[in-house]
């Protein structure tokens, strides 16, 4: 693997780190398996691209607006679940499916190229380093900043309530926490992060595409599972690091797999490799094999 490829992998790894933080919030904190991200990732891309190209918005404002719209999508999923008792997974699928059509509307077609326009990455062009070197640094800073904000949020009264709502809903209610509201905001925030990732992804690769959401849920989940099964995750601080590291490691693993000529894989095999890696991580997690963690199953009981 060349340096160029390595930096490219880091770049996408950091972008998907945002998706992983969202997946951590829904799957681990709220215990709400959320499939909306399949739609909110391209939604973020579509909104950002449309605002930049069609409405001529400032790229930073467009990116922020895309996150906000992602929040609305997540809120809609949680609303279907909380208000109408629709199974969480089904609610996510319904919203994701409808977002597919919505994205086509937003972009007025299946994709929206972002060539020769100002993106958030244009701001770093004057630094004298090529984009493939500076973009991963910028994205790394973004994902670390989001991680720290999320850590801080989860330590506030609200964040603590969200953790209780996911871990022990009966206890949370008995302590005056509106569990339904916590789901609405939590799933909203997670999809806001996913849409932010989508918006940044589109700006790096020069286009938003209606199909770019396929497999995002697996990537997010894979990052969380891979990260948390090989790194310590006792505290929120460590767990969010593990999620980001998981996203980067997962991207590296995919890149290595696709690069290994003897395996004979093509770029189109990426989804299959992804699914295989997730299954492998889950199997390893169940059989209690871990690389850096000491075996402490007995101590847990």
């Amino acid at each position, binding site marked *: 693997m060349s340096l160029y490829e390595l930096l490219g992998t880091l770049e996408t790894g950091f972008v998907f780190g945002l998706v992983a933080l969202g997946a951590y919030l829904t799957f681990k904190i709220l215990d709400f398996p959320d499939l909306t991200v399949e739609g909110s990732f391209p939604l973020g891309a579509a909104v950002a691209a449309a605002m930049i190209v069609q409405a001529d918005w400032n790229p930073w404002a467009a990116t922020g607006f895309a996150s906000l719209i992602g929040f609305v999508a997540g809120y809609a999923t949680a609303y279907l679940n909380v208000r109408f008792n629709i199974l969480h997974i089904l609610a996510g699928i319904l919203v994701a499916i409808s977002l597919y059509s919505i994205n086509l509307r937003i972009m007025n077609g299946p994709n929206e190229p972002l060539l020769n326009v100002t993106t958030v990455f244009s701001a770093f062009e004057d630094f004298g380093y090529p984009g493939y070197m500076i973009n991963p640094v910028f994205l790394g800073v973004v994902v670390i900043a989001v991680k720290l904000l999320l850590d801080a949020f989860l*330590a506030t009264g609200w964040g603590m*309530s969200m953790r*209780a709502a996911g871990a*022990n809903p009966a206890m949370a209610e008995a*302590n*005056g926490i509106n569990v339904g509201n916590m789901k609405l905001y939590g799933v909203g925030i997670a999809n806001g992060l996913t849409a932010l990732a989508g918006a940044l992804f589109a700006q790096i690769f020069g286009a938003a595409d209606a199909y770019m959401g396929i497999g995002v849920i697996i990537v997010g989940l894979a990052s969380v599972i891979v990260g948390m099964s090989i790194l310590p995750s006792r505290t929120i601080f460590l767990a969010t690091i593990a999620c980001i590291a998981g996203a980067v490691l997962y991207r590296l693993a995919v890149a290595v797999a696709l690069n290994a000529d003897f395996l004979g894989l093509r770029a189109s095999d990426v989804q299959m490799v992804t699914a295989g890696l997730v299954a492998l991580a889950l199997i390893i997690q169940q059989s209690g094999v871990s690389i850096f963690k000491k075996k402490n199953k007995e101590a847990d009981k």
Partner: protein
Amino acid sequence: MIDLNNIHVTFNKDTPLETRALRGIDLHVPRNQFLTVIGSNGAGKSTALNVMAGIAPAEQGSLRVGEFDMTDWPVHKRAPYISRVFQDPKMGTCEDLTILENFALAFGRTKPRGFRFAVDPAIRTTVADRLAALKLGLEDRLNDKVGLLSGGQRQAVSLLMATTGETQVLLLDEHTAALDPKTADFVLEITNSIVKELSLTAVMVTHSMAQALHTGDRTIMFHQGRIIFDVSGETRDKMQVEDLLHLFKREQGEELADDSLLLG
């Protein structure tokens, strides 16, 4: 303080499994009273508690607590006024959070939660002081996850958490049933002292007749969804478990068939 007026609860209504759990309960618990509730399985005692807590919706009738008509209030809205200790020690606390974080949640019951950090030095000192009174050494383990504590310790923590802030009403749902006898006695002891110290209005559901008679100041018994007797004052002080059984036989004309009520 607590008023139940003609409360009816039916589970699985209009199905072959229809069960009439409560058939018109009228109950008035004055302020500062410690009421114990007894009854066999399916008698309706837990359902009555769940109606007060807001978990079981009343099909008919009304509930007042203090100055509020809470009949249609959701659980979380009742929380500032009513707190609750569960039967299962795992239910009352959040095992992934530390002792301190759990208390921070409990403080949120009566104080609004916000975007400030949940745990601050003031909470830390208050919690350490209250835990020290238990003499379990928990004040030195504030940053331990609650999942590391034993059942009895968790139940003691739940009890302290349920009595933070300006809570007036404490509901205890067989909160010693899942503990070994020695620990159960310990938890009951701290229950008594906290209820007295904070002059709470308390309702304790229990499976043990002896516990029901020796704790608190009034005992009621549920049977088939009705309150079949209600004793307090001197009559109650003189009562033994056998007297309770005679009373039951006289009221119902049948022998009490639930062994678990007699044991313990």
